[in-house]
Each structure stands twice: as structure tokens, then as C-alpha cells.
């Protein structure tokens, strides 16, 4: 049976299809096509100049035997330490900012400014702040503690902590806003009831605030891990050659070098896929585990 939709309804369907076409095409051309291409490329060797060659699992074999791959993976995992630190700091900030004070929105804005600052400019600024001889940070350490501060970006042991500090500064504002929203979503009735029962401030925090913020914790952890695994810009600016003894290279930096410095497109694609799968698995595990600790209303 042929059914014809006519009039106003038909027109609406057609227009909706027209509106939906550009983003769908955009996704197909700029999202799905490169994704599939890179999957194919990960089993090939291609330098962009000469025709590609199928090499089977050679790229993956090479990867699992390359010390730089492991080093950059380790560096990336090390940077994950910044996530719990960031959560603690931004939660404290959020609780401080959750009070009804005059001019509180100014403080909130100030803490949010790093989030909207361009990462390149911020990285260059930090490069000076962390300068071994002339940096503000070491100057401060000298004035307050009377001792020479570390060579932040020059010492292989301090490069990653430096990145974490920079990440904290740049990231807490955004997380703070999330926590702020979470805090304001907690009904005051819980606290009133707790007060009646004689719970201390700490107990209120521990048994009301913290659990009820768990959806936010979950979101921050998931996004934080994904973001950390993708971190690149800071390293590109501050450790252009991978940092001292390759201590500043992240996995995406490693991919970038292989792809756009040595033009091993096939190999870079295979590393990118391993990274993608890794993130996927970690996120999946987190979702599984989340059932045990995340309270959903």
C-alpha cells in the first residue's frame, strides 16, 4: 500500500532532512572516512610520497618493541596523577565559592579565566614562570625557603610534575564550575536533617556532600582520563624534542612525531588505534565500576 504524506507535514519532513544533511555529510567526510582510512592504514606502510604497501601486523610488532612507545605511554599514565589532585582542589574551591558573599561571581570568574585562555599562550607563560634561573616560581622558593628550586622543565624527574601543575592551574576552573553546579543541586533538606541529628561539618561533608556529588566525580574522572590520554599541546610547546630523556613525550606527541615529522602514516595510525582502543576499554571498565559507587537519583 502506498501512503503519501502531504501538505504541511510533508514539507516539514523534507526541511528536516535538508537541515540534517550538512552535519551528517560533515561526519561522513571528516569523521567516518578518516576513521576507516586510518584503520586500513594501520596495517600498511605509507610515507605519503610513495604508494602504500600492506604490511600486516608489522606496525604493531614494531610498536610493542619500541622503547619510545613505552616511555610515552608511561609518561601519559604518570600524568593521570593530575586528575585526583585536580578533583580535590576544584572541590575545595567549589565549596568555597558556594557561599553567598558579595562579589563571589568575580572570584568565580577569576578561577575560570585559565580555562578560556589559549593553551599556547598559557604554555609560553608557564615556560617563563618555571625557568630555572629567572622564573617566578624558583624566585618564590628562594625567597620563602631559601633554597634553589628544581630545574622544572630541564630535569627529567620534574618535567611531568611541571605538566601536572600547569594542568591543575588550567583545569580546576572548569571542574570547579561542575562541582558548583553539583553542590547547588543538593537539596538543603539533607543538611537540615543531619544538623538535627547532630552531625558535625565533617560528617555532613563525608556522608552527604561527597556521595551526592558522585555523578560529578564520575564525569570528571572519565573526561579527565580521556583528556589526559590525548594531551599534546603543552608538550609540543614546552618539550619540543620530547623533553630531557624523552621524559615529556606523551602518546599523542609520539603519534604526531611519527606522522608529521617522519611521515610514517601507517605506523602512526596503528598507534592511534591502540590508543583509541585503550581509552575505550578504560572507559568501559569505569562505566562498569560506576554502578558500585555512583548514586543516581
Amino acid at each position, binding site marked *: 500500500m502506498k501512503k503519501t504524506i502531504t501538505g504541511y507535514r510533508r514539507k516539514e519532513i523534507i526541511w528536516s532532512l535538508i537541515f540534517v544533511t550538512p552535519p551528517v555529510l560533515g561526519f561522513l567526510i571528516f569523521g567516518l572516512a578518516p576513521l576507516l582510512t586510518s584503520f586500513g592504514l594501520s596495517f600498511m606502510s605509507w610515507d605519503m610520497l*610513495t604508494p602504500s604497501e600492506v604490511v600486516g601486523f608489522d606496525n604493531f610488532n614494531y610498536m610493542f618493541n619500541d622503547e619510545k612507545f613505552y616511555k610515552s605511554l608511561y609518561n601519559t599514565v604518570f600524568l593521570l596523577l593530575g586528575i585526583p589532585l585536580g578533583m580535590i582542589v576544584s572541590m575545595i574551591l567549589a565549596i568555597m565559592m558556594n557561599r553567598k558573599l558579595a562579589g563571589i561571581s568575580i572570584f568565580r570568574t577569576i578561577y575560570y579565566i585559565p580555562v578560556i585562555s589559549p593553551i599556547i599562550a598559557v604554555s609560553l607563560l608557564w615556560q617563563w614562570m618555571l625557568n630555572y634561573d629567572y622564573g617566578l616560581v624558583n624566585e618564590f622558593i628562594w625567597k620563602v625557603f631559601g633554597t634553589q628550586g628544581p630545574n622544572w622543565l630541564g630535569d627529567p624527574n620534574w618535567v611531568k610534575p611541571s605538566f601536572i601543575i600547569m594542568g591543575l592551574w588550567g583545569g580546576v576552573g572548569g571542574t570547579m564550575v561542575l562541582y558548583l553546579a553539583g553542590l547547588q543541586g543538593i537539596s538543603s533538606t539533607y543538611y537540615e536533617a543531619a544538623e538535627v541529628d547532630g552531625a558535625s561539618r565533617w560528617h555532613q561533608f563525608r556522608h552527604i556532600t561527597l556521595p551526592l556529588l558522585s555523578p560529578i566525580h564520575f564525569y570528571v574522572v572519565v573526561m579527565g582520563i580521556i583528556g589526559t590520554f590525548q594531551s599534546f599541546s603543552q608538550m609540543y610547546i614546552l618539550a619540543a624534542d620530547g623533553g*630531557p630523556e624523552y621524559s615529556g613525550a606523551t602518546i599523542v606527541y609520539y603519534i604526531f612525531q611519527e606522522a608529521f615529522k617522519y611521515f610514517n602514516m601507517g605506523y602512526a595510525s596503528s598507534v592511534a588505534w591502540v590508543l583509541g582502543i585503550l581509552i575505550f576499554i578504560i572507559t568501559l571498565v569505569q562505566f562498569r565500576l560506576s554502578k558500585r559507587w555512583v548514586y543516581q537519583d
Partner: protein
Amino acid sequence: MATWKSGKVWMAAVLCFIIVLTGCSSNNGGSKENSNSGKNNSANTAEQSPSNAGTAGEGADAGADAKSNIEFMGWGGDTEKAVFQTLIDAYMKKYPNKKVKYTVVPPGEYYQKLDTLIAAKKTPDVFYAGGANFNKLVSSGVLMNLQSLLESSSLVDQNNVWPAALDRYRYDGTASGQGDIYGLPKDVGPWAFAYNKDLFDKAGLPYPSAKAGEYTWDDMIADAKKLTVANERGKIDTFGVAGYSTESAVWANGGDWTDGKGNITIDTPEFAQAMQFVADLNLVHKVSPSPDDEKAQNGYARFVAGKIAMFPMGPWDQPGFWDLPFNWDIAAWPASPNTGKTATWLGSLGFVVSAKTEFPDDAFRLAAYLSLDQDSQRQNYELGQAVPNLMDMAKGEFLQMDKKPETRQVFLDIISDYGRPPIENTSKNTKWLDTFWQDASAVWTGKQSAADFVKAEQPKLQKLFDESNK
């Protein structure tokens, strides 16, 4: 099912589709096509040629009036862009039928952009290439062999171009410097050894010799010790030397990274000794900034601030150094006391032509013009960018130029005598070399002796080298 009748709606849908498509391929498709018509009608233009005969210059220059459309891509900052735009405008004035489209890319993104264009089959007709990338492009068949054009052309006087500069663009698939020519030099960049005259005067020391072989490593260390000054807090304020070239030391001592036959040869006593000499400038003699010091303020900034007595420089550093408030000059690189010889690297970048260009003759013509034209070469050296490619100009007016450095002859000595191609020119890829420099920090910081380091590093580099040069 809906029946699709409305023409208006379809047009809108098609329009959307077109917008998306053009978004990804909005390149220069147009310019090439309309130039096709002019390609093979030299008979047509020949009739008009009498009116243009004067501009063509040399009588034998056939094809001076043929129409063409050339895409030229290079990199550089605002200065370089302005210089080349002027040159190209002059070229188009000289040959009114030839159009050139000039694109400048930031240096850091250049090879990324180039390789993407090549992969997309949109290779520019004329572009920059040098070092390991040049080798890779030749062996991938991207570049046009210019040998026959060069021989038959009246535009290039090969005898007046530095052999070292021209040889750089010979490649036979295994080693650079041999075989046919695939590019013309854009510039030659001798890595020279500059010194701060005022600091030498203050210390009462004679200047290092401009003649190769006279001033040795030992002389330099002795001088550097006298030139190194600590401030009242005990921290070294002025260093004798900084940024000493490892290449210079290794080559002068008779070592090298590769043997030219695909073997990594860093594990020789000569190599280790030279590397240790460079490391010891800081570790033992304390006359050079440590890696930590360098991180805080690099050698260049320190030299410019008058806090380094001896420091390497290339011709491109001249404009920056002309404004310095102290006197400076260049000398020969110190010689190894073991061999009595010295060496340094001679950088160069070239103009190359795409093998797929529609206009081989005119692409070559443009490359030759940019590479060897008198005016372009003059402008380039007057701006302090490079040493002229033309030997008569370099030995004539360039030497006479009344700007620092006084002893310009040193630049020419490096080009014609002891300058060598940079290490990366022996390879198609720099991965092994990057790894070497990264790992070498263990020697500079004193964690490992040079002898131990090169022994452990050799197999690793050999593996990477083989992978890159399959």
C-alpha cells in the same frame, strides 16, 4: 512514502551538498586549468614576440614568451616573504606571459603541508627542499631531474656557482653529492665561529685566527678559561664559549656519524674523544654553560647580551648581530690538535621542481632565476640572509661589504674548503639523528662518558638508520 516533487527543495539540498564538498577541496583547481590553453601555442606567441624581444635578454632564450602558470611554495617569515614577492614581481615583469603564484608556509609546518599536497597530487611546481627531506623526495620520484635542462640552458653559468652548493643537489639514490642534479641552491649557509672582540680585548688576548688550522682546541680552552668570569655570588656570569658544534669537533678529529655506505660509525675512538672534548668544556673546564644553564637562558641570548666570548653563527644571524653594542668578528673553527684540521657544516636549502609539473621549462626558469639572478642574490646578502651562490659576487662585492663581520673570507673558506653537508644529508629521515641528540644528553650532563655512550648507542642508531633508509 513521500513523493519528491518540489524543485526548490531539491535545489536547496544540492546546494548544501556543494557547500560541504567545496569545503574540503577549495584549492587551486581553477588556476591550472585556464593556463592549459596557453601551454602549447608558442607559435601564436612567436608572432607577437618582436614587441617583447628586448625584455627576453639573451637571444638564444627560446620560450621566453611562452605562457605559463607556476605555483611556487616556500617558507619563511615576513622578511623572506617580502624579498621573494619582490623577486617574483620582477620575474613576472621580465616575462609578462608567465604567472607565478607564491605561497608562504610557516617553517614548522612546511613539510607537513608539502607532503599533504604531494599525496593529494597537488604538488607545487617549484618549492623548497633540503637535507634529509630532499633525499627522500628524490628517491620517491617526486622531483624532476634537472640535469639536461641545466646543460642546455643559457640561464645558468655552472662555472660561477659554488661547486659545494650545486653538488648538494646531486643524488643518485644512495648518497648525496653524486649523480644528476635535482635542485638549485637557494642559499649556502656556512656555520661559522663568532667571537666577541670586546671580551677578548678586555682579557688582553689575541683574536682567534681566521685561517683554518692555526687555532686549536687547546688554544681555545686556554683562552676560554681566561674569558670565563664569575660574579660576586660565585655564579659564572660570562662564559668563554657556548654552543660548540659537535659536528665540527667530530669531523675535525677524523670521526663521522656514518661512513657513507650505510654504516653508523659513532663507536670510534676519534668520535668519542671529540664528543668528550665538547662535554668537558662544561664538565671539566667549566668554560661553557651546562645544559641546565642553557635551559635557563640559551647560548644565543647570552651571546647577544655580551656574556659569551665565542659562539657559532650562520649568515642568517647577521641582521640580529649588526645591532649588537659590542664588536664581533668570525674566525675559523678551532682545529683538533690530533689532526691539525678543522671542519664545520655548510647548510643549504634548494629550489626543486616537481616531476609532474605542466611547465618543466618555466619551472626550471623560475628556479634558476631565484637561485642565480644577480639582483636576487645581491638583495639576499645585503639583507644578511646568506652568502651569494654566485662565486664572482661572493668574492667581489660580498667581501667588500662594509658591515660586520669584517673577516668575511671565513664564510668563503668554509664554503670552498672545510665545510661539509650537515649530518642529516646522509639519510632520508632524521629519526636516528634525533634519537642520537636526545640520548646524547647523558654525555653532556656527565652521567655517562662519551666512550661508553657511543658504544651503547651504535647498534640502536644502526637499527633506526636502516629502517629509515630501506
